[in-house]
């Protein structure tokens, strides 16, 4: 029983990471109607930036905040430079751009930092709590994810910019008629996604260790989480991510070899797409033709 609970809770911690990255996917999907395949590699690259800053002697949280800011600006720049030119092209063109970005970030990171696995410091101590059901590090990661979700909900619900972003995603022409600069809103969406992804990368790096391929698996779980929650819903992304984390852990422990864990994510993706394409919290997108 203890082991079972332990698996659930450690799955919860892993799920928090998937949830963060799923949040980033949802952010871009809502802003630009696009699944960003480069989300994981962008997060990985941000984590390297944080690693460089920490190695340069910055305190952890200082490096963290600075990385968030750099990632936000970088995300906006990517939207401006690479996504906007294919804005009106068929969606496949934009998807190919994000796949190209994935490869570019992966190879650039390998070229600058080499493919050697690096240690990454954790800001949280690693002590068992709750009768060894969890560690303080797990708690820290979960807390960071929940704080991030809370900030996003407040941002989208109560600030003028957050509301304008929702409006721009929902009805761009109408948003323009309200005086909203839709292009800038899309760029902010990409910036936010990059910043959220950076947080996920920094949180997962102490566990997975830092190397250019570290986010590959995480991105698949995040996809599964985002789809399960409904790719249009931030709350759904977090709930979906947490469920995926727990399922993956339990199935990997009790049902199949842990090497096969990734198949759980794919199975989930297929099940969701077949039986509940809008996910748990998502809304169907109706397109008039």
């Amino acid at each position: 029983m203890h082991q079972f609970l332990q698996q659930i809770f450690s799955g919860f911690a892993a799920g928090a990471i998937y949830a963060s990255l799923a949040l980033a996917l949802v952010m871009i999907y809502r802003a630009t109607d696009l699944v960003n395949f480069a989300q994981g590699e962008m997060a990985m690259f941000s984590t390297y930036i944080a690693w460089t800053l920490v190695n340069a002697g910055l305190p952890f949280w200082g490096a963290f905040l600075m990385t968030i800011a750099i990632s936000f600006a970088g995300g906006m720049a990517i939207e401006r430079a690479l996504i906007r030119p294919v804005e009106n092209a068929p969606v496949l063109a934009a998807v190919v751009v994000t796949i190209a970005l994935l490869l570019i970030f992966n190879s650039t990171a390998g070229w600058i930092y080499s493919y050697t696995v690096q240690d990454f410091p954790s800001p949280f101590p690693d002590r068992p709590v709750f009768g060894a059901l969890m560690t303080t590090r797990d708690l820290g990661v979960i807390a960071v994810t929940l704080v991030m979700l809370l900030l996003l909900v407040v941002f989208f619900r109560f600030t003028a910019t957050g509301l304008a972003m929702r409006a721009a995603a929902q009805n761009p022409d109408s948003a323009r008629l309200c005086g909203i600069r839709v292009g800038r809103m899309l760029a902010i969406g990409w910036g936010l996604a990059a910043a959220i992804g950076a947080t996920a990368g920094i949180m997962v790096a102490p566990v997975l260790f830092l190397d250019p391929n570290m986010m590959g698996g995480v991105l698949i779980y995040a996809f599964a989480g985002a789809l399960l929650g409904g790719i249009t819903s931030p709350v759904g992304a977090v709930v979906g991510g947490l469920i995926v984390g727990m399922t993956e852990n339990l199935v990997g422990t009790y049902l199949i070899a842990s090497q096969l864990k990734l198949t759980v994510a794919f199975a989930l993706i297929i099940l969701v797409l077949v039986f509940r394409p809008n996910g748990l919290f998502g809304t169907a997108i109706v397109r008039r033709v």
Partner: protein
Amino acid sequence: MAPILELSGVKAFYGQSEVVHGIDVAVEEGGMTVLLGANGAGKTTTLRAICGLVKSEGKILFAGERLDRRTTEAIAGLGVAHVPEGRGTFVGLTVEENLRLGGYTRLSAARANIQRMYGYFPILAQRRRQQAGALSGGEQQMLAIARALMMMPRLLVLDEPSFGLAPRIVEDIFAIIERIRQEEKVSVLLVEQNASLALELADHAYLLETGYIVTSGSAKALADDPQIRRSYLGY
């Protein structure tokens, strides 16, 4: 009085094809001008050209500023509020969120303006937390007008506010438009299929046919024009 909006030789495009072929239209400051015409005459395209939503050529002057070549959001910022065809409601957002979006260019006054709009449209206050998509057609039209007024515009551009509404609701909507025009001191450019109602309220009227203005003049003169009576008023 000087016109607040003046179109000279304006051509407007629907996609690549020219559907408005060089028209002159003026809206007097504080006045109400109506564009009449059959479906496909180019009325909506003219309005969309004013707001920069479609490609146009020619000169569009608003309160001394050129509107052509400006972006839609910049035109909105200058004080031109457009209630588009189909109302442009943000259906997934609440009524109050829709109003807040209308006030995006006037953030400091938004709170007071929302209360003022609830004064004009008490039903919106009752439904403030509901999804805008759940409102009836008439309520959505009220919301669209209120959203436009949140911008504290100098010119209100209305594209068929009567569309799809029951006659009694149409009368309510036009009564409130008339009241708002007086109280908010806003000029109005209206496109309307319901010609008799529009000609009653407007002071100026233009008749568009296949992209050309074929008749224009005071609303009274057009209402008395036998050809217009036959084609558009039905008597």
